[in-house]
């Protein structure tokens, strides 16, 4: 018996370690999931049940009325058509802003690594500074610029702002990815007869999906969740969903409808959640993928 215990002790120790590790991980995961759980359950409860006061209790009667109201008929300010317009408004500027900033970032990275010129490293460093400039600093100059360009209070203007602000990040991503592309590949393509743009389209972009995913997730999250640029630069009736959500939740008139607030908040967060779930595994892969081994 004693022998048996001794022989098994090593394995037993490892199993115990596993239990501790997994237990801890599950605990932390639960802790982080708690707010989501509360949001979800609250959003499908009736107002009476919420008033009864038990925050973490499961709903007695499940109703999706709050979701329907948040989407279609809740009032934000004077407008009582729900968040759907704001949702589509957000989509309408986030998609072009993400696509354009990613494409330009890829192009910048391509030039800064594979077509270096005198001062290209300095230029890159200068662009990096853009990563550290807080939103608030650029508000006034940006408003002035948009005015000059005739883009004030337009969706194009908001796209422009997000593209400009995102370029520092997207350039950084692509530049660091392309650094590991062997220069000889570009030389080979030049000898094969390919020009500057052909090499970009036919050779460099096709090997970029990992970093494109990273860039898209990053940009989508940033731009979709942005509040400040949205509230400052968007036209009154084309407000992004983050701004509408704020107006909805911070309203101080009437009865506070927590279930509608929660549903609205989840609706506002769904697209980023969706992007992470669809592309998440590529995200980590892209962050760690450096080399482009043949």
């Amino acid at each position, binding site marked *: 018996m004693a022998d048996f215990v001794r022989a098994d002790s090593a394995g037993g120790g490892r199993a115990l370690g596993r239990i501790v590790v997994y237990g801890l991980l599950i605990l932390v995961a639960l802790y982080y999931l708690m707010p989501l759980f509360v949001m979800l359950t609250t959003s499908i409860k009736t107002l009476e049940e919420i008033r009864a006061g038990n925050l973490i209790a499961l709903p007695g009667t499940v109703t999706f009325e709050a979701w329907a109201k948040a989407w279609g008929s809740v009032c934000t300010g004077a407008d009582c058509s729900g968040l759907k317009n704001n949702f589509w408004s957000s989509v309408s500027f986030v998609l072009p802003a993400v696509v354009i900033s990613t494409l330009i970032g890829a192009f910048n990275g391509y030039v800064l690594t594979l077509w270096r010129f005198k001062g290209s490293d300095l230029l890159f460093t200068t662009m990096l500074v853009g990563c550290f400039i807080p939103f608030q600093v650029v508000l006034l100059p940006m408003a002035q610029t948009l005015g000059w360009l005739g883009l004030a209070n337009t969706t194009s203007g908001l796209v422009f702002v997000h593209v400009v602000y995102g370029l520092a990040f997207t350039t950084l991503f692509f530049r660091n990815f392309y650094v590991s592309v062997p220069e000889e*590949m570009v*030389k*080979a393509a030049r000898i*094969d*007869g*390919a020009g500057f743009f052909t090499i970009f389209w036919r050779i460099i972009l096709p090997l970029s999906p990992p970093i494109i995913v990273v860039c898209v997730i990053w940009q989508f999250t940033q731009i979709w969740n942005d509040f400040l640029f949205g509230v400052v630069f968007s036209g009154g009736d084309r407000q992004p969903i983050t701004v509408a959500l704020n107006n909805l939740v911070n309203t101080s008139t009437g009865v506070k409808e927590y279930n509608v607030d929660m549903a609205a908040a989840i609706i506002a967060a769904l697209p980023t959640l969706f992007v992470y779930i669809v592309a998440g595994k590529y995200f980590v892969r892209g962050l760690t993928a450096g080399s482009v*081994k043949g």
Partner: protein
Amino acid sequence: MGRPGVTDMGSLSIRNVVKRYGNVTILKSIDLEVRDGEFVILVGPSGCGKSTLLNMIAGLDTVSEGEIAIGGRVVNNLPPKDRDIAMVFQSYALYPTMNVRDNILFGLRIRKSSPQQMEEALARVAKTLQMEHLLDRKPSQLSGGQRQRVAMGRALARDPALFLFDEPLSNLDAKLRVDMRTEIKLLHERVKTTIVYVTHDQIEAMTLGDRIVVMKEGEVRQVGTPQEVYDDPADLFVAGFIGSPSMNFIRCTVESRGGRLGVALHDGGGSFFMPAPPSIGGLGERVGQEVILGIRPEQITDKDPYAGANPHSIEQAARIEVVQPTGPDTLVLIHLNGTPVTCRVHPGANPKAGQSMGLTFDLSKLVFFDPSTEKRIR
């Protein structure tokens, strides 16, 4: 060498070519004529400018001064794609997202070749390099040697006037490198296209080239056939760079004994006189001065009982310090004039460290160098 004015399709002329980056001169006035169909090796230690020169021939780098002509046509201002060249790179530089077929055909596709042309080129290349079965694979699914073959296939597809190879075998392991060396040589025999091949490996240079261009610090030190460069090096650098194990250099003093010029050597104990070949007239004015004697390891061997009396050799015993068997030969280290000297003896002689051994010095190929200029004394 090349015949100026005659425009062979694959000839290459490099005339007074200089390359500068800012104030730094990388290449100092290079002159080289390569005939159509010739296999020329640019060899030298890293930083000697050989790759820069190759990039300039390819058009990937600009020429600061001088002229480069391919097939009699000056190409200084032509982009790489218009120079009728193809290049194979050390890192293979295959396009990772394309399969082998598309890699090979990329250049033709860019040049808008007809489908029949591409079909023919693909069939020809796949047959030449025996890789019909690899055409649908991605580069990541190939071994190092296969990737190297695809890189060559890409170069072959366009049937250029001039092939440029930039250290193509450096990324391969030792055994594969030897195999691919043979394959490249066979390829050249078959296609008979001019090849300019850059390497830092002197064995590759010796085995592959019709002619070798030895470079150092942006200058051409010597141009010649492998045997010329080996037997008749222009200076101390070339002599030491070509050959493995490399030539022994021994500092010694010129003496005249019995009407013959030669050098005095000692092996720690007794000293002896080593007469120089009479053809080296330059030693006459240096009696009493120090020179550097160059002697290759295979010129110092064990006594051959069947050799008879060779007038161009002397026999001398020396104490063996280290014994290194390589299989076909055994390398033996002795000391002469305080310098370690490698000798190549037959394994059958069974040398033992610490013992004295009778050695035969072949004097017919002795070379001498000036210690200050490092040039040959002839």
